């Protein structure tokens, strides 16, 4: 995890979830904690199923520590991926999900480890770090840049959005130094870049328009 030099702590779920025994009878194999890394279960690394992703996100948003985030609803799920811890950690052998969310209302990143076997958020970290952009944020940045007059004035015939990158400023004079931002690169589909537009995702505005050769 991004800055997780802290012990992983189990947390109580928002609601009582007696689902470990009741609704998941088909997981006994994962309960056998391997004694050492040579016996690690490779299936724990498998991609998450849609149901596992949904389960992890439900568990996270029901956690009372995130109730304000869930209530306001201005957050974006950045990523969900399997997480595997090594023996002898007590969660070794559990099906774990790492969830990264960006909470726009609080302007902070939420990083959580959800234990699907226990139905709890096992670890939660709230930071000012900037995780990568979600696909939704990339699409939003493009749509904001496309309708900006300063951007449109610099585009030439045939220019299209080539890519959207996660950008941060080098100095405090750059608005993107501390604010969640994207760089949208425009150019010909098969050619060089022509224009770079920086989009502030907190205010949904274009903050810089720079010819690509001047970037």
């Amino acid at each position: 995890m991004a800055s997780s030099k802290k012990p992983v702590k189990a947390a109580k779920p928002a609601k009582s979830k007696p689902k470990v025994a009741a609704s998941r009878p088909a997981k006994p194999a994962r309960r056998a904690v391997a004694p050492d890394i040579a016996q690690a279960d490779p299936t724990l690394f498998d991609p998450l199923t849609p149901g596992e992703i949904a389960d992890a996100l439900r568990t996270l948003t029901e956690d009372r520590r995130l109730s304000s985030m869930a209530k306001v609803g201005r957050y974006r799920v950045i990523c969900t991926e399997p997480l595997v811890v090594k023996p002898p950690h007590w969660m070794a052998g559990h099906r774990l999900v790492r969830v990264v969310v960006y909470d726009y209302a609080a302007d902070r990143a939420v990083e959580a480890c959800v234990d699907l076997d226990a139905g709890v958020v096992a670890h939660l970290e709230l930071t000012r770090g900037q995780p990568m952009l979600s696909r939704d944020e990339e699409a939003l940045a493009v749509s904001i840049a496309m309708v900006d007059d300063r951007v449109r004035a610099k585009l030439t015939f045939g220019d299209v959005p080539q890519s959207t990158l996660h950008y941060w400023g080098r100095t405090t004079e750059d608005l993107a130094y501390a604010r969640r931002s994207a760089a949208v690169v425009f150019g010909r589909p098969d050619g060089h870049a022509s224009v770079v537009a920086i989009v502030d995702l907190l205010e949904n505005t274009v903050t810089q328009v720079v010819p690509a050769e001047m970037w």
Partner: protein
Amino acid sequence: MSNVISEANWKFHWRLTESAGIMIYLADYHGRRVLWEASLPYVTIDHQRETLDVKDDPGEVHGPWWVPLGTRTLQGPVRVQSFRGGVELSAAFAAGPYHYTQLWRFHDDGRLCPWLTIYGPGVHDQHTYHPHWRFDFDLDGARDDAFERFEDSRWQRVGQEGWFPYSGEADEHGNVWRQIDAGTGAAVHIRPHSWDDAEVFAIRYHDGEWAPYSPRNAAGSQTFPSAYVGDEPLDGDDVTLWYVAHVHFDQSFPYTAGPWVKVSGLGN
């Protein structure tokens, strides 16, 4: 396609991640564990302005940027191919003017090549790529590791976490860093590409400390993996290594960055 490959004395698993390219995990050589997992968490890019006059050089005006290498930037399928003396995985990624081919090559003599071929024009010529690899080697078990660097004509034990750039000094095989299992003497040696301007971060392993989903820490804080470096002891513990290359774009592109990794002490 199966994600378990047993070939060339290696057995390993792989999967495509959301942001860290192809991840290799639970890799064994001659039936003994070498790697818990390894991936390419990010490739950042920063830009310089083109000027020959030092007085007029504004330095790096803009900050870096990056785009995840993963499911959203994958071009075509992940390929598994045998070659003479080994097997390799490769995948192409593209994000606008940035193009990459990630490679994992496994040789039957214990060599492992985590490489990245970089091409594409970029937004202009004056830019530098910084691919970051993360290796969690678990030689014959997770604990009881030691980390050493070649310095002053000999291998020297490193006691605590830190940043260890390539100084130009290497052993007779070109190796600069190595991780050793103290119990069995098995080792992985790391030889940088001579043009990588490489550095290694050696960090004590912590549960759940998988690669972050961004090099970007809070404003004003160090980026990852620098932000991980503290003063924790390494000797006898579980060590994680980050290999970072710094590759300036020039006319000789494409360029393949990444180290040679050689496993020793596990063979028959």
